[in-house]
């Protein structure tokens, strides 16, 4: 599992720019960013080098930010790669709350999924890896 920074932002002009500037000022290196938006507000989800430090820096500036655990999966970069992974999760009865693509390079892609892994986490991870996918740690990103 990896750390994700989640920020609650008003859906107003300039708010995202301000957020990114604040992260830059705190010397946070962003690796991925995705936004779930409504007309009133947005929820910004970020993978960065140090989510906890980023959260504290943002909190100090008055942002509502939190750190959430999400899973990073390495999947083969070919048609059906993600479909296969989701099939495995479905077979294991692991629901996916949301997800987004993290990176693609060469023959591998990394996808972030918010999943609630069951109690026997290791067994689920084992089953996922047995199916040919890799569950990445923070360091492996």
């Amino acid at each position: 599992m990896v750390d994700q920074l989640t920020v609650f932002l008003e859906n107003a002009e300039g708010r995202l720019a301000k957020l990114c500037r604040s992260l830059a000022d705190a010397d946070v290196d962003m690796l991925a960013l995705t936004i779930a938006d409504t007309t009133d507000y947005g929820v910004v989800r970020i993978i960065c080098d140090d989510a906890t430090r980023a959260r504290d820096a943002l909190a100090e500036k008055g942002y509502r930010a939190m750190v959430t655990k999400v899973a990073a999966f390495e999947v083969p970069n070919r048609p059906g790669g993600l479909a296969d992974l989701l099939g495995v999760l479905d077979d294991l009865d692991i629901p996916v709350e949301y997800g987004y693509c993290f990176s693609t390079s060469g023959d591998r892609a990394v996808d972030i999924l918010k999943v609630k892994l069951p109690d026997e986490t290791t067994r689920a991870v084992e089953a996922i890896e047995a199916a040919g996918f890799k569950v990445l740690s923070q360091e492996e990103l």
Partner: protein
Amino acid sequence: MEERDDVLHMPHDQIEAMQLEGIKKTVVACYENVPFYKKSFDEAGFDPYSVSSLEDLSRAPFVCKQDLRDEYPFGMLAVPREDVREIHMSSGTTGVATVGAYTEHDLKFWAECFGRGIAYAGGGRSDVVQICYGYGLFTGGLGAHYGSLFSGATTIPISAGNTERQIRVLREMGSTILCCTPSYAMHIADTAIAMGLDPARDFHLRAGIHGAEAFSDNFRAELERKFDYKVLDVYGLTETMGPGVAVECMEQDGLHIAEDHFYCEIIDPATGEVLPDGEWGELVITTLDREASPVVRYRTRDITRIIPGECACGRTHRRIDRLHGRTDDMLIIRGVNVFPSQIEQVMETFDEVSSWYQIELTTKGHLDVVTLKAEVNPDFDFDSTGAIEQLQGRISAELKAALSVGVRVRLVEPMSIPRSEGKAKRVIDLRGENQ
């Protein structure tokens, strides 16, 4: 109707003699039957058996809304519960409602008082009265209903909402008198215009009896232009009866108090001193013949004045001026009374949001829109999908249940609600600005 008409034209000294008898009976009935009044009179050293002039009443202590709330549900009853035919409650269902109870006699004079409004508008058997105040515990709907029945008119108890149906009924049944809040009347007019109708030509309205919220002279003029009818203001409150305590006549120069049932004083809200006619202050009402829920010197918090002199219509009952606001923070939203404290009580139960919240009142068309902005707390897990919508929905549902008014809830970023000297400005009322 003949005999009651005499009451409306009685020389004022006779009205005063009648009022004195009513006050004497009421203070004694309260003292002997309601423990609250016994205690309050005794503590103030007021002897209810010693009243011999109207001025003597000013020695009696006031009663206020909180006193009535504290005695919920039946502590203020001056008759056995078995004699109560009907119960109404003022808005607010968070356990702070005030109860108004009515015996058969009370219902009868309520009908008569509101019925006077219809009579002032020249209404009677030949009229069709469409009542789109909400029916139920709110006194607006049934008060107008009883008044309309009393007046002999044909009554349409359509209640509030479903504007297109209101418009159909206005056209097809040829309603001549409309009873609702002024803002809803405007909404009906504007909806009809948007549907391609001309309310002045396509409807048959002669008069509108519009109360439960304050409205400006400009607003009245616009209504009258759109519908080509006459707008009469009506005043009342559950604590003293309901709508009909005072109603405007066709002169539109103040609201005639039903002085055979209510005694009105204007006081300085700061000192409690009774002010002379013509001076603005807080309206204080004493009921003269209400049996179930009599009140002695009820502080309405409404600011008005007694208009000196007689009305051009020839009726002798004194008039109060149109309301000039309130001495407390009560809001009137879509005709419903809302206290910011009711909202606060609901918000306190949500740990997910901070105590910084703000209520913004705006108008869409002519209807009030309430938006509540609240700041999310740090420990609220907003990362879960739908968490924010769900929280907004839950807050909105709780507020609706507590206030009987729909509230749009918007969660906002921390510090986005302005702090002023450490105390939040809870209510931003922008309703006057786009009218």
